[in-house]
């Protein structure tokens, strides 16, 4: 009797537990025609659902990485503090959501101009302290590392190290199509991330400023001849890259609870995606993000979630060793 109820409870989402239950009873579950057939169906279902979860996760990774694709990929500024800004965005979304019950994504869109200004300010400091002085990569890296650390410690001092999460109507319900699950708390951030990427791609390829941003990495002198100030263009681009972290932060806190040091897990991920897809290519970012999302999802489904953080590093090392230019890279 007890085994029976375990079987029924575990029937839908978790076939691993099902198998374990069957092992303990030592006989096939009720309703199965043979011992092998249902296992096949369920592992197929598990695989498909892991793939879907990976693609949805990939959409969120797009939101998280698109800023790095601009700052590191196009401007060649190694902003390792990027994930710290994302966590800052998460905490702003959390504060407003907890206090006024506003939708996190709405908050993020409202806060984007503030993040843009923050990014422009950081670039001003970076430019005057490091870029103008010449190729002092060591100082610039230490500067961003310091920013990452200060943000994290400041968040610990303000909010403590407890996990925080937000509430919204779409957190909880799941669309079911046949065997396939589409949890809305993954779908919404995924769509947001992809929309943000499309908007940025249109901006970069259609407007004068956008094209100037693409050009600034190639030839600054030619840009000057087109009557565009390379420093201003870079400031705009870096501001944009930080503005994306507002939305990415909101997307992140929708899919998982947040604590200040969680940003560190994303440093490896964002750079792995940016390098994997090809530096400076936004479509490459989508491919890299989806690939990482799927591999991580398959790893956590079949080997356990505690192994997932190692996947990004493995992919990054393989990419660097085999094809440093990335999948869609031009360099």
């Amino acid at each position, binding site marked *: 009797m007890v085994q029976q109820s375990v079987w029924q409870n575990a029937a839908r989402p978790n076939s691993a537990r099902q198998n374990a239950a069957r092992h303990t009873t030592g006989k096939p579950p009720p309703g199965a025609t043979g011992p092998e057939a249902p296992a096949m169906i369920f592992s197929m279902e598990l695989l498909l659902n892991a793939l879907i979860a990976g693609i949805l996760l990939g959409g969120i990774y797009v939101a998280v990485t698109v800023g790095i694709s601009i700052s590191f990929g196009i401007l060649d500024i*190694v902003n390792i503090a990027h994930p710290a800004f994302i966590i800052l965005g998460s905490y702003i979304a959390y504060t407003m959501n907890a206090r006024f019950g506003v939708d996190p994504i709405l908050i993020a869109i409202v806060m984007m101009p503030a993040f843009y200004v923050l990014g422009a300010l950081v670039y001003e400091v970076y430019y005057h302290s490091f870029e103008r002085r010449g190729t002092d990569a060591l*100082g610039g890296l*230490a500067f961003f590392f*310091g920013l990452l650390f200060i943000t994290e410690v400041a968040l610990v001092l303000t909010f403590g190290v407890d996990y925080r999460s937000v509430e919204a109507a779409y957190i909880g319900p799941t669309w079911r199509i046949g065997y396939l699950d589409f949890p809305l708390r993954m779908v919404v951030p995924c769509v947001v991330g992809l929309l943000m990427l499309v908007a940025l791609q249109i901006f970069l390829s259609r407007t004068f400023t956008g094209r100037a941003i693409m050009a600034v990495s190639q030839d600054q002198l030619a840009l000057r001849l087109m009557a565009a100030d390379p420093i201003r263009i870079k400031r705009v681009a870096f501001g944009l890259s930080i503005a994306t972290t507002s939305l990415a932060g909101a997307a992140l806190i929708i899919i998982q609870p947040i604590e200040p040091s969680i940003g*560190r897990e994303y440093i490896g991920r964002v750079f792995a995606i940016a390098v994997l897809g090809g530096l400076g290519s936004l479509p490459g970012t989508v491919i890299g993000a989806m690939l990482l999302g799927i591999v991580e999802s398959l790893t956590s489904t079949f080997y356990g979630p505690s192994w997932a*953080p*190692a996947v990004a*590093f493995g992919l990054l090392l393989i990419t*660097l060793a085999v094809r440093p230019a990335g999948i869609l890279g031009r360099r």
Partner: protein
Amino acid sequence: MSSFTLAAIVVAAVVFVLARMLENEYVFFAGYVVLQFIVLATAWNILGGYCGYVNFGSAAFFAVGAYSSVALYKAAPILPLPVLILIGGLVSGLIGLGVAYLTLRLRGVFFAIATLALAVVIQTLVINWTFVGGSRGAYIIRANELNVFGYELPYTQYLFLLMLGLVVAAIVTARAIERSRLGFGFATIRDDEQAAEACGVPTLRLKLIASTLSGAFMGMAGAPFPYYIGYIEPASAFNLLYAVNAIAMPMIGGTTSWIGPLIGAILLGTMQEVARVTISSVVGVLIVGVLLVVFVIIAPRGIVGLVREHLIARRKP
């Protein structure tokens, strides 16, 4: 034995005797942390300061040393601590060599990013490795006192003495590198790698040597750590604190010579111990982060650079 090595040993002996004269165990307890930071900062500086390649994963190398001790403690409890330190250094050095070999052929930035990600990955491995306790951590049971050359020494003092020995070894090595062909090779990499390569400097080999040495000393600094705190778990061994301090101390002290990391580590290490007792350790760490950013913007050459400029300015008029 050069006169510098002799002087370093004499200074270390004086420090130990003075610390004993205070007759307060806390001095050894706090002093150990400062000494550990001197080794970490000096080790970071061999690759970061001399060659100009930033390692963000000092915490990973430190933790590899610490966890190799834990693994050996579980597998062969009879091994004495100095042997564990050597083995910890060996393992960390090999990891330094591996990461460097995979990424240092590319732009230096990729090495920096890889070391950041390395910390996350090794932490994942340790969390999943139940033999050394996994995420629950592991206890190390140590003796209260130890017989060293006929003297009964409290264990904290023994650890302090060992770390003092490591400090001497690290600083003597760093200074020897500075004044050798190896050091000049490192400096050419820092100043202009392409020009160095064109002149026939074997840059890749030099970078591999620097990375291995640096990783080995970080591992040696971490190896006695489980014996120091008695209980180790991944979050404390992989604390970002070590990575930040390993960068901040040389950058604030000055990266071009062995004395910079020493000054930075003594100043920042003492400051953090004072802040831990008087305010809170988080505030102490925040101060380190702010100082790092302020120094790289305003005084990129660190305290040593500031003093040097001051001396030159005074000599001119």
